[in-house]
């Protein structure tokens, strides 16, 4: 009589090598990084009173400050709208160039995508700091920052949309000898327009959030007032600014979510 063979576990499985090695690596990394950053749990709790004091002062917002910040808040929204629009407009040609179903040259695609990857690595505040140095303090630097920032994000989203389109209409137009521009206008555009607008709105949401802190480095909008109130230790004003920002973000998110639901 032969017994069915019991499944053999390899040495790696039997001693849980993967799990143990993973845990050890994680613990070593945790210890190394906490030593490097000088984390001191005790200090946090001994200074916790100070932190709470800050929160308490924030919890009584100076409501009369609202009137002052309405204008900069609107400016923040305007910066976000304009920045996103410019960024999205710039992104379209780059998205077309990096879509694998439209551009067959691997080299061209690779170069464009590498460029886009490089743009995407730069954090928004870093860009703001550089553009403030170029354009001076004011909303222009903010708009340019948001344009570059959204360009990186939107172009990736756009080319991923383009890559999912149905190739049938394209082949039909190609077979009757239409030019590349005609193909894009009549076969590509109708398929992607709604998704483009949806991603545009999504980017706008992110940009509204981002633009609220850009002013911290002088790039216009509500962030300028945020920095001022923090520098003057006027936390009740800071609280108003944060709450007002929250309201604006929620309203924009709501509108954009509604529009996106209608579109898709």
């Amino acid at each position, binding site marked *: 009589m032969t017994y069915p063979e019991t499944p053999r576990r390899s040495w790696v499985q039997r001693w849980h090598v993967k799990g143990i090695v993973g845990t050890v690596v994680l613990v070593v990394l945790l210890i190394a990084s906490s030593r490097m950053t*000088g984390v001191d749990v005790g200090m946090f709790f001994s200074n916790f009173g100070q932190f709470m004091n800050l929160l308490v002062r924030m919890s009584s917002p100076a409501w009369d400050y609202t009137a002052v910040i309405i204008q900069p808040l609107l400016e923040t929204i305007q910066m976000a709208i304009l920045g996103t*629009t410019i960024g999205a407009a710039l992104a379209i040609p780059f998205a077309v160039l990096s879509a694998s179903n439209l551009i067959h040259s691997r080299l061209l695609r690779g170069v464009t995508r590498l460029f886009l990857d490089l743009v995407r690595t730069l954090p928004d505040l870093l860009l703001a700091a550089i553009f403030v*140095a170029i354009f001076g303090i004011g909303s222009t630097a903010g708009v340019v920052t948001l344009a570059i920032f959204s360009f990186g994000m939107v172009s990736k989203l756009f080319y991923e949309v383009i890559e999912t389109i149905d190739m049938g209409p394209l082949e039909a137009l190609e077979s009757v000898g239409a030019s590349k521009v005609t193909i894009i206008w009549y076969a590509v555009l109708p398929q992607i327009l709604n998704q483009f607008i949806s991603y545009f709105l999504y980017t706008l949401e992110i940009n509204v959030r981002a633009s609220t*802190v850009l002013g*911290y480095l002088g790039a216009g909008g509500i962030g300028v007032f945020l920095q001022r109130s923090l520098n003057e230790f006027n936390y009740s004003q800071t609280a108003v600014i*944060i709450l007002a920002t929250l309201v604006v973000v929620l309203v924009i998110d709501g509108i954009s979510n509604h529009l996106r639901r209608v579109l898709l």
Partner: protein
Amino acid sequence: MTTMTVMTKPHRTIWQRWNWLLWVVVIGALYYWTINGLKFTGLQESAGAVSQSIVDGLVHPQWSYVYDGSGEDLLSLILQTLAIAFLGTIVSAVISVPFAFWAARGTHERFFLRSGSGKVVLTLIRTFPEIVLAIMFIKAVGPGSYAGVLAVSIHSIGMLGKLFSEAIENMDRGSEEAITSAGGRAGQVFALATVPTIMPEFFSYTLYRFEIAVRSASILGMVGAGGIGTPMIFAIQTRNWPKVGIILLGIVVMVLLIDSLSEQLRKRLI
């Protein structure tokens, strides 16, 4: 006589036919308001010269800054930035788990009071700007990377909690039911079915959040919360463009490396 069939267009109401015009007006007005509302300072006189020197600095980075053994060089600060992001993400992932179970919509829940309140709290945390958090923690623990770690840990809860709770809502309940029907107690169901099912997704989201944390850790230094941002803002303020160039290069390489590493790991997880 030939019969002619006339193709009638599907009937559309006036509203359907003309509502695009409304959109044109609304969007036009929006852009009119936007462009008129912004005060364009225009280019400063020095803008050309500054851009020239920025490009110059980027082309000729200050290579000597990469490593000089002082502990204040690019490599040590990049490592410090990564440490801030790593520690912040891990701490926040641990704290996010209870938040996620709080905010996840339960199958038998009525009126969604519990999950609704959890979602509101997570949204509040998410909207609180990371920079402001960093400044608050600097007041509490002094300037340095510790404040950065705290800012990343607290801010990430907002997003990780949301992603985790969505993972819980969408998880496969099959193994939970199996353990329950075999007579498992609530604790056993949790340990043997819930945790193993959602762990890979939690890990994957944590890695994704780590990618974002690396970016934010590199700018938190601009307000004094440690990492590469501090020398960056000093270099920009003192117009030391070769140094800005090398730091930018460092950040770009760091982010690209971390992104591809994390992508590899995430592919293996799911």
